[in-house]
């Protein structure tokens, strides 16, 4: 027997049999606007809390498994600033970096990868043109194409749950079924899905577990759960109950509510396989 990838009771039962396990990833996400972190990062004594590179270095040292930059710069012309941030981060952090926000073309992807991103996340452009996912995957390989899915529940209480895709930061309903869409983009070459519940985003009420599980069980690629994390138990639930391969959170880390080591140790105590390199001493 081997430990179950989603941890929980199954994992605990087989803990002794655990040999080598792929670890659940904890991914802090930084919203970047005009080269600055939106709202700032307050969890460590940074000289410049608004510098994404400094924040990235701090998260790297804290044991984050990957980093995610979401560029919310309004104007496409200001991309140069973001590219500089990506380059400087890749020079200082030897860990995987995903960059998303405003990615519209194969050239946009190439530019980000060349600057130092390892994976690029596509959102609205994939909704508008599904073949864009295929073109991107063929060009750069599935392993670096992440499709970001913003989903919102559209079924009422008591009805079978159904979610649809939203674009434009959750303002625009598309009428596309989220589970069908997830399957489709994976069949076209998405190597990973970044799934955000628009109902939960910013609420601190926890992930939408039914949504996360519906998508994670429907596709063969890893799913990153996002939107709604308020407590460390929420992180556990996203993986154990939602079947996500990774959890992404922003504010609980940025505002110092919890540290990365606290999150990882809590998840490990719940029976999830975690990478604790260098942070085990903090237990």
């Amino acid at each position, binding site marked *: 027997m081997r430990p179950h990838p989603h941890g929980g009771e199954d994992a605990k039962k087989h803990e002794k049999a655990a040999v080598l396990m792929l670890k*659940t990833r904890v991914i802090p996400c930084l919203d970047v606007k005009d080269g600055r972190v939106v709202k700032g990062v307050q969890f460590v004594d940074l000289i410049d809390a608004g510098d994404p590179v400094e924040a990235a270095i701090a998260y790297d040292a804290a044991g984050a498994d990957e980093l995610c930059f979401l560029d919310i710069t309004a104007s496409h012309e200001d991309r140069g600033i973001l590219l500089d941030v990506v380059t400087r981060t890749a020079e200082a952090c030897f860990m995987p970096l995903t960059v998303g926000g405003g990615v519209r073309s194969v050239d946009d992807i190439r530019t980000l990868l060349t600057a130092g991103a390892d994976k690029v996340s596509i959102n609205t452009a994939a909704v508008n043109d599904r073949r864009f996912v295929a073109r991107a995957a063929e060009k750069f390989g599935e392993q670096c194409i992440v499709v970001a899915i913003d989903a919102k529940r559209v079924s009422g209480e008591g009805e079978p749950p159904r979610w649809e895709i939203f674009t434009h930061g959750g303002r625009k309903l598309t009428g596309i079924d989220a589970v069908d869409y997830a399957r489709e983009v994976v069949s076209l070459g998405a190597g990973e899905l970044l799934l955000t519940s628009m109902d939960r985003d910013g609420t601190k009420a926890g992930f939408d577990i039914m949504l996360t599980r519906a998508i994670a069980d429907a596709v*063969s690629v890893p799913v990153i759960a996002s939107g709604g994390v308020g407590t460390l138990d929420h992180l556990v639930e996203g993986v154990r109950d939602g079947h996500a391969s990774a959890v992404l959170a922003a504010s609980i880390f940025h505002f110092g509510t919890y540290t990365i080591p606290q999150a990882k140790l809590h998840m490990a105590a719940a029976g999830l396989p975690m990478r604790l390199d260098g942070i085990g001493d903090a237990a």
Partner: protein
Amino acid sequence: MSASVAIIDYGSGNLHSAEKAFARAARDSGADCSIFVTSDPEVVRKADRVVLPGVGAFADCRAGLHAVAGMPEALNEAVIEAGRPFLGICVGMQLMADRGLEYGETPGFGWIGGDVVRIEPADPALKVPHMGWNTLDVARPHAVLQGIPTGPDGLHAYFVHSYHLKTSDKAQCVATTDYAGAVTALVARDNMAGTQFHPEKSQTLGLRLIANFLRWTP
């Protein structure tokens, strides 16, 4: 004299972070070397150490390498004829195999016996790509792993791949990881080594492995 390390640029992905990781590992370990990202076969031919990275599909990478005039020959000269230390990374490691079976059948360098085949975890709940951090199970000691804690409580390496090199000669498989079945993590023979994982993205383990490679005298 400072030793030269050539990281071969053949249009496969970003080599900036690889370059920076090698420079950092050299600095941290006090290795006296100059790191060059190059698409010039002459630089590769004369390099003291050669690194072949690679991301994407096997056939694409091989085509990309062969599209650089003189590069396959320069690589062969440096690694096979002159016996200089070589490190393949990810698809750069997979290219060392006899054949790749991703999108049809593509010949590799034939340096390491075996084929590059899709990972098929025994547990269907496991996702492919195998993406994330895992520890290493070492079959035999190797200089590039010196001083690196391995096994279940060891340091972690970062993997992102759907295919792996299934070696026909067990002796050439130095380390594996587990994903409901053994997945080849490190291959080696003579003056050549190759990692399926990304040392340039593997934090402490990665920088130590690169530092070991820079000191390696096979």
